């Protein structure tokens, strides 16, 4: 057996201290296989060693939470027998190396996390960050990632209903691909990953194991340098057809009362799935690796244990149900194998061709998994000079809506099957959140994902809190009651103090906002080391929010009808720092807008109740976010292909601040009856003011400018088409 050298240890991403700890746990030197297992189990990706301490501070409980973080995905109660299972996960590094496969397998992985718990996935979303459109790689990465996401979800038959896409040079060499999946399950049919029952068989099903992505989990936790591209580790190839077979066969088997525990083989493959199941159930496992179906010849135990071949599941079944288990998998044309048994030794014992090749104590390994309190330091405040903007309102409006970040994302979401399953009521660009009917029922769920990295870069705490508030607002605007979130924390290298500062601050901000809004965190994912040559991405804590609409007839989109009135709900304070307007004038410095969570709650509740109680006079609703009031109005006009006459209230002195400020807690409410809204707002003491009417065929601010609606739409559509075609 190969001697474990210092180089081998560092190649495995383990520190000297961690290696000493391994020896202490084993009471001897590890062999290569054991070292490999430790290295993936203790990788940032699997152990959360840099963030665990802080993640524990997040609010994770609530009256609707059935299962918080710790399982494959979080679960919330949505009334009657129904529950939702959801989570978000990143596939950033693999997508940079191979955008199509990287993104596709990201979608596949998150769907397995959801259906492994017994749920049928009903919606996918994705949150994407690319480098500057001018960067030589961006176009290929964009096309590959979008196609990969689309092809995978489309083939499995799960609608991809929403998401976001944002370009910024800080992502030039570290794109972000975060995929979210929501599934539906009956409360009494939830499956967990807690192994039980000495002697129970461990069944492997799905794709045959190959040498794919060996060391993917440690790769996902390592910084890139210029060599990373040529040094390419084996990428994982996705097989959505296999995923569909796994989904259907697992759903069928789950009806049979056969499964004791089930877990997908995600990052760190067979290692982490078997280890985690045993660890949660406080038992031991014995694996016979020669039984593992392999795609390639002469695979070693090391390769088999660490392979990240996609579309594989591991389950513990009742011995009496082995027969039916194999029958069901056979019906679906899948390879299933019994590869081991649950034991009471408390150890993971790995056999290969009858010989023991590795033995690790489960509990000590799990308990001593490292947890760091890495030093953090607030970066020195930079002084900045404010540049004055000399764009007219019309110029700025056109510049913003035809910019990469604000132009229509049709090119993206037309590649996604948004409608399969026939329960999509609204998808991206129709409403602030996607709205999906709970099949065969009168209720619907609303889903969104949000993050403003510009804000987060300036103030990670406030920026992250605003992300939470924005997702909450998006749900409110569809008439939903927000319930819970999942998050995906994307940052640079945590070993740097200023990055660790961002991480701590962002988690703190999420916690504060979630507590105030009664909006707990039920699952999530952390992606660190998103940097290349010492240049980190902007901190990007993406929030995926989920809410419930009890009566789907009240689901609200961005719809406007002729002669409707458009009201601004909430106050304009005129904050322009970091706004799209300022950025359109190359003024990129400053603070994010202030966030008053009490006001957020008050305005949100008002909107939510108004939509619910006065639905007959509400046409639509839209929250005000990046770009401010005028962009929100333009978006209404564009998505409805209808003209809007905007009237500036008499009290307004500064047009730029009025139209472009990005103050929080604001909505546009589109109603058929001004009087009623004014009356109710007065009673509830909420500030509302009429800002426009749905009229004619152009978008205009009275006494300022007028743009024909067709032209406005062209501005909004042009960028993607030109960019891709060229």
């Amino acid at each position: 057996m190969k001697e474990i050298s210092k180089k081998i240890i560092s190649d495995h991403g383990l520190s000297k201290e961690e290696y000493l700890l391994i020896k202490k746990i084993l009471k001897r030197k590890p062999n290569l296989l054991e070292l490999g297992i430790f290295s993936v189990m203790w990788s940032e990706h699997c152990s959360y060693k840099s963030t665990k301490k802080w993640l524990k501070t997040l609010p994770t409980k609530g009256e609707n939470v059935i299962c918080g973080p710790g399982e494959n995905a979080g679960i919330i109660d949505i009334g009657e027998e129904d529950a939702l299972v959801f989570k978000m996960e990143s596939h950033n590094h693999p997508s940079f190396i191979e955008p199509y496969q990287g993104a596709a397998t990201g979608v596949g992985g998150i769907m397995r996390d959801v259906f492994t718990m017994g749920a049928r996935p009903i919606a996918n979303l994705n949150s994407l960050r690319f480098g500057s459109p001018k960067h030589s790689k961006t176009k290929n990465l964009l096309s590959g990632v979008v196609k990969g996401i689309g092809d995978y979800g489309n083939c499995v038959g799960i609608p991809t209903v929403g998401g976001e896409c944002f370009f910024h040079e800080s992502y030039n060499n570290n794109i972000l691909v975060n995929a979210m999946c929501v599934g539906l399950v009956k409360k009494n049919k939830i499956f967990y990953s807690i192994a039980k029952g000495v002697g129970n068989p461990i069944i492997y099903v799905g794709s045959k194991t190959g040498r794919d992505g060996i060391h993917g989990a440690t790769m996902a936790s390592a910084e890139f340098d210029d060599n990373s591209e040529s040094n390419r580790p084996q990428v994982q190839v996705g097989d959505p057809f296999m995923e569909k077979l796994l989904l259907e066969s697992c759903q069928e088997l789950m009806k049979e009362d056969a499964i004791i525990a089930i877990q997908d083989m995600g990052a760190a493959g067979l290692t982490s799935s078997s280890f985690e199941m045993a660890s949660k159930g406080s038992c031991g496992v014995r694996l016979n690796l020669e039984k593992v179906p392999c795609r390639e010849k002469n695979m070693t135990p090391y390769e088999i244990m660490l392979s990240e071949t996609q579309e594989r599941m591991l389950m513990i079944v009742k011995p009496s149900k082995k027969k039916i288990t194999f029958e069901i998998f056979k019906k679906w044309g899948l390879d299933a194998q019994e590869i081991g048994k649950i034991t009471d030794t408390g150890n993971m014992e790995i056999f290969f061709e009858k010989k023991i090749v590795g033995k690790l104590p489960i509990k000590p390994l799990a308990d001593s998994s490292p947890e760091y309190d890495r030093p953090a330091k607030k970066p020195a405040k930079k002084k900045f000079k404010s540049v004055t903007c000399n764009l007219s309102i019309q110029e700025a409006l056109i510049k913003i809506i035809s910019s990469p970040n604000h132009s229509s994302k049709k090119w993206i979401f037309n590649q996604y099957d948004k409608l399969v399953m026939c329960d999509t009521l609204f998808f991206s660009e129709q409403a602030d959140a996607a709205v999906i009917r709970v099949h065969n029922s009168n209720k619907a769920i609303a889903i969104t994902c949000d993050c403003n990295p510009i804000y987060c870069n300036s103030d990670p705490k406030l920026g992250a809190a605003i992300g939470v508030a924005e997702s909450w607002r998006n749900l409110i605007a569809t008439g939903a009651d927000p319930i819970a979130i999942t998050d995906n924390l994307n940052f640079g290298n945590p070993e740097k103090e200023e990055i660790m500062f961002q991480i701590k601050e962002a988690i703190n901000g999420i916690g504060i906002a979630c507590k105030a809004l009664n909006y707990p965190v039920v699952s999530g994912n952390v992606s660190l080391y998103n940097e290349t040559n010492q240049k980190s991405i902007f901190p990007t804590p993406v929030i995926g929010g989920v809410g419930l609409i009890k009566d789907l007839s009240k689901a609200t989109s961005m719809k406007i009808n002729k002669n409707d009135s458009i009201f601004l709900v909430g106050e304009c304070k005129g904050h322009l720092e970091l706004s799209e307007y300022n950025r359109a004038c190359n003024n990129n410095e400053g603070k994010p807008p202030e966030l008053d969570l009490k006001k957020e709650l008050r305005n949100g509740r008002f909107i939510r109740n108004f939509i619910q109680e006065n639905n007959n006079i509400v046409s639509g609703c839209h929250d005000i976010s990046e770009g401010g009031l005028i962009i929100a109005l333009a978006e209404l006009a564009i998505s409805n292909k209808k003209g809007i006459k905007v009237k500036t209230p008499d009290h307004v002195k500064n047009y730029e601040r009025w139209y472009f400020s990005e103050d929080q807690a604001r909505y546009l409410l589109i109603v058929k009856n001004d009087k009623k809204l004014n009356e109710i707002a007065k009673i509830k003491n909420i500030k509302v003011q009429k800002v426009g009417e749905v009229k004619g065929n152009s978008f205009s601010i009275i006494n300022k400018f007028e743009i024909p609606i067709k032209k406005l739409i062209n501005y909004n559509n042009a960028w993607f088409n030109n960019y891709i075609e060229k």
Partner: protein
Amino acid sequence: MSKKNVSIIVFPGSNCDRDLSVSIQKYLNVKVSYVWHNDSKIENYEMIFLPGGFSFGDYLRAGVIATKSPAIHEVIKYAKKGFPIIGICNGFQILTECNLLKGTLLKNNNQLFKCENTHLKVENKESIFSKNLKKKVVEFPIAHAQGNFYTTPDSLKELEDNNQIIFKYSSKNGNINKESNPNGSLNNIAGIINKKKNILGMMPHPERAVDKFGSQDGILFFKGLGELL
């Protein structure tokens, strides 16, 4: 409710089987039996549907592997006997691959999957599938990567001469032009029937147009089929 059942053939990778069955039960008002691709007998053959999706992952060419399934031999048998067969999206691709319908479906001309609403001009108003549509133009969504209909000039002429073209992609007002062609299909063809006129293949999804949140023209389509039973 009619006593008869209709059948939906389910292949590994089909993913519109449930969607189709919901619409059929609700608007055609009959029960649905699912037939697994490996079954070599179809009990309810009065009307047979081939659903959308990615049968066998759409590997090699969309629909081709499905044509090797035992159930397809049965479908061919009942097709020849004149029973109505309807293939939607992947179902259409399967029907051309097993030669029950003319032509083939190439990759979309921009090489990308496309999901959007389309308007369809009803070209033949006499066929058993379209005579109850009662609208000049209907609106059904499409969602496919391989929907670019192609056939040889001879067989195109045959399709035209026999009035076998049922749907063409069009503008809202029924104009058939390049702008309304979503995928490059020859002459904007979106749906055709066979010479005997009992088999329909179409790329757009009527089962996705039955909700008040979008188009409801699919209801007309399914209700119209009711007469055939």
